[in-house]
């Protein structure tokens, strides 16, 4: 065992009990650590069980694989499908990728610390025990551009499982990579845990768009951990959509704009239903000359849901720019939206701003639509859907249209 891995394990071991800063603390022992290989492997996405296929579609993962450059499906801890037709992108499971590329370990636990909390620690320990655990490796080759996205799905099929995933995504110099990932649960799963660690590396001039739709069950706890390293002139765009009930989700992806003139966009659409607790943030560290970021979040809370919409912009060098926009609609008295925008300026000549508003639906808007013949209920839901349908920037036109449709479908139920 090499020294670096030993060091990683040592740090993970130490952090095994370390609570996360935000979100309810989860007892990891409650969940079953199912082994890889429990679910059968297939060679094409349309060979997974029909019921699973229907669920995949809802989160933007198309089992027919039309207009996709590759597909990765993981069920619980087993990878069941890995296909890739593109010549400009590589898609593999992490164990395969680690076997193929000796250098891959140099990218592991660099954008996310293994000892960040007990969830990252558990993922690190599990992958060491299981010889490279769950998760995918995506790499776009230098100078390549595939307008068709890679699609990936993390699916929980069995009751009470803990799904641990470690993904590494590398966009080589001047490449453009589009990824759609959907996460979902089988209809008979009532309780489970998903921990997904994702590390993104964008080399000079690279661009990644990452669109993620979550559709978990009401008793599932979710703890994604994401780090993004953004090189010179690189662009990272993240779109996150969650409108279905979940027990709890807590995530605070961090992008490090260390490259000059790099740009990061985080957009989130959050719909809180039933007793969901959504604690979602995004953080951008602006540490490269001339880099910029924009964060936009729209939250709607219904029923007894609680939404914490966090954002942190940290400007560490001169001439960087960042704007944070956080809007929320509180639709029920038993629900809550807690917006926490944070600006940190640690240099001169920088521009950081935020705009946050939490409130109710404007009655004047409802009446306007009623005066066109809509009922109060129809008017309200049209306004809520409109409020959540933010325009997604930076996608190729075909993908933008499809993403728009995915958002429209997701917000339909709000």
């Amino acid at each position: 065992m090499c020294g670096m891995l030993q060091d990683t394990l040592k740090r993970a071991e130490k952090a095994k009990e370390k609570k996360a800063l935000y979100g309810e603390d989860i007892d990891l022992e409650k969940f079953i650590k199912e082994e890889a290989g429990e679910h059968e492997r297939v060679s094409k996405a349309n060979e997974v069980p029909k019921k699973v296929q229907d669920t995949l579609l809802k989160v933007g993962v198309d089992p027919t694989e039309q207009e996709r450059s590759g597909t990765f499906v993981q069920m619980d801890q087993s990878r069941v499908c890995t296909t890739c037709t593109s010549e400009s992108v590589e898609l593999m499971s992490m164990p395969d990728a680690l076997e193929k590329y000796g250098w891959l370990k140099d990218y592991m636990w660099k954008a996310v610390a293994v000892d960040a909390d007990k969830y990252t620690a558990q993922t690190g320990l599990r992958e060491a025990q299981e010889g490279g655990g769950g998760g995918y490796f995506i790499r776009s080759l230098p100078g390549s551009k595939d307008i068709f996205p890679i699609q990936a799905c993390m699916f929980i099929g069995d009751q009470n499982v803990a799904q641990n995933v470690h993904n590494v995504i590398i966009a080589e110099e001047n490449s453009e990579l589009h990824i759609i990932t959907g996460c979902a649960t089988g209809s008979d799963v009532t309780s489970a845990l998903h921990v997904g660690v994702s590390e993104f590396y964008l080399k000079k001039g690279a661009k990644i768009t990452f669109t993620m739709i979550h559709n978990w069950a009401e008793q599932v706890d979710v703890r994604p951990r994401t780090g993004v390293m953004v090189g010179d002139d690189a662009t990272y765009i993240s779109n996150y959509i969650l409108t279905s009930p979940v027990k709890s989700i807590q995530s605070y992806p961090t992008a490090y704009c260390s490259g000059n003139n790099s740009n990061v966009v985080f957009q989130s659409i959050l719909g809180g239903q039933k007793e969901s607790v959504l604690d979602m943030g995004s953080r951008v560290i602006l540490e490269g000359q001339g880099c910029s970021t924009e964060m936009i979040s729209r939250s709607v809370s219904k029923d007894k849901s609680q939404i914490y919409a966090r954002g942190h912009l940290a400007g560490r060098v001169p001439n960087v720019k960042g704007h944070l926009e956080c809007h929320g609609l509180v639709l029920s008295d038993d629900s809550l939206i807690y917006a926490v925008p944070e600006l940190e300026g640690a240099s001169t000549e920088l521009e950081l701003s935020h705009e946050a508003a939490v409130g109710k639906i404007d009655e004047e808007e409802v009446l306007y639509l009623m005066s066109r013949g809509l009922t109060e209920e129809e008017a309200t839901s049209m306004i809520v859907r409109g409020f959540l349908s933010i325009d997604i920037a930076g996608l190729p036109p075909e993908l933008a249209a499809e993403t728009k449709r995915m958002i429209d479908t997701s917000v339909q139920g709000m």
Partner: protein
Amino acid sequence: MVVKLLLEITDLAVEVNEKEILSDIDLYIDLGETHVLLGPNGSGKSTLFMSILGFPKYKITRGEILFKGEDITNLSTTERVKMGIGVSFQNPPAIRGVKLQNLLKIEHHEEGEELSPEMMELVQKLKFDNIFLERDVNLGFSGGEVKRSEILQLLAQRPDFIMFDEPDSGVDIENVELLAEEVNNLLDKDKKPGLREKSGLLITHLGYILNFVPADTAHVLMDGKIACSGNPTEILEDIRKEGFLGCVECCKIH
């Protein structure tokens, strides 16, 4: 010729935030007629308008409103609109994420992905295009665009009774004529008076639009009461010469 009453407002009193704004309002509009409501700022024109529309802030404390013979005094805005009342607002709110196209589909009862050719023809007539249809309704619209969009939506709805709140304010001359043409179209002005089936109530400050849209009767609202009713041309003439107060004085004498 059988004259049919479309809108009958009798002895109406309206409160806003527990303050009486309108009282003793009697207003009768026949099928096919266009009336114009004049009056200085703050006289209650918009309040009357919103009360006919049934907005909840406007509490009717006395009197009744009949539309097509039915008592609508306690009906919701939606129900009134479904019965055939339509409206063009002076300053409608912008709604993020609600595209003009989506509204037109609802107003014209269309289900398709794209607007019908019939609707597209109206869109072009009002000088809009596909790109504009994708815009969030009223968000960043210019004054003229707001008015044209309101009229376009009414053309999609085709209501039997239409209230226009300052349809020409903030619109340049060239577009006033375009708007007036469509207002006339909405109000069946191309038909002979006895054959018109659409009625309207125009609220106007300056009366400029009346140069293009002929009205049958004018009413002057002062301090929450209809102070004077009569021939629009004569009343306007009086107002121009004597101001609103002078005009009302003159009415009292008659």
